[in-house]
């Protein structure tokens, strides 16, 4: 399973902005951490803004703030802003319309359902806990 770069960046940006309440970061701040171009990230932030998940912050430094509900926004909500998930259909594909292609569609559909269910049940708040959990062992190891 691989996500498009825009989806990954959008998830990373939202996780950065939700690290603490009212956190405000510029595109350059986030781009520097993940080693991506500010141009590409700016487009992603614009899409997140259109979806009502972030807003550009006024004042010194500017930047973006998260303005969604971290306990209600799921990974699926973010990913679907940038790429379709789920069956694309096999129309035009070799063998489409055959019973073999139908059988293959059943298997692919099972995978699609699992992917959607996973992304659709993990909120930004849950992701933040996963991030924090991943940091704890590293932090503990660093103190040895």
């Amino acid at each position, binding site marked *: 399973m691989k996500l498009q770069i825009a989806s990954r960046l959008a998830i990373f940006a939202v996780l950065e902005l939700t690290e603490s309440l009212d956190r405000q970061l510029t595109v350059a701040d986030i781009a520097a951490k993940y080693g991506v171009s500010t141009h590409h990230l700016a487009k992603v932030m614009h899409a997140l803004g259109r979806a009502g998940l972030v807003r550009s912050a006024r004042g010194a430094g500017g930047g973006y703030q998260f303005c969604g509900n971290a*306990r209600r926004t*799921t990974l699926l909500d973010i990913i679907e802003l940038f790429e379709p998930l789920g069956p694309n259909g096999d129309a035009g594909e070799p063998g489409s319309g055959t019973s073999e292609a139908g059988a293959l569609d059943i298997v692919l559909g099972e995978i699609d*359902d*699992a992917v*959607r*269910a*996973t992304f*659709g*049940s*993990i*909120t930004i*708040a*849950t992701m933040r*806990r996963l991030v924090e*959990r991943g940091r704890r062992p590293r932090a503990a190891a660093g103190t040895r």
Partner: protein
Amino acid sequence: MKQSSARAKARSRPAAIAVRAAKRGDVAAVTALDARITGLAKSAHWIELYDRQKKAGQPAGIFLVAVGTDTPDRLLGFIVGEIRAWEFGSSPCGWVYALSVDPESRQLGVGETLLEAMAVEFRKAGIAKMRTMVARDNLLPMLFFRGEGMMAGPYVQLEKDLN
């Protein structure tokens, strides 16, 4: 609309949540709550489940109910678990079989309190892994269990139509 909903929630908010082992007298309220949520009354099922757990000598409290400390007769929610072992090589684990919270008492931490109480019971029995099964499209419990840190496990549930 929002104000009346807030008022209803304030009325139903207990002083604190208490979790205790279910008693036979709780089964009627458990049945009623389950029927409200699932739309299907299963009285015989809950009575049989309660009696079976007592007979099998399962750890006391594996059928737990949550009540308000100031409203000990009002059921806020319930959880049922069991210890399963060696299903296709799976070492003993604690299964959460059912978890329901009164819709008017949600967002108060009732489900979280019940799940943690169940985890305590499993740990007491020497169990280090807790599992459950949720329908993929049943978003509320999926979000809840994910939020509690549960992730997809190494087993896949399979099924087949027998008709």
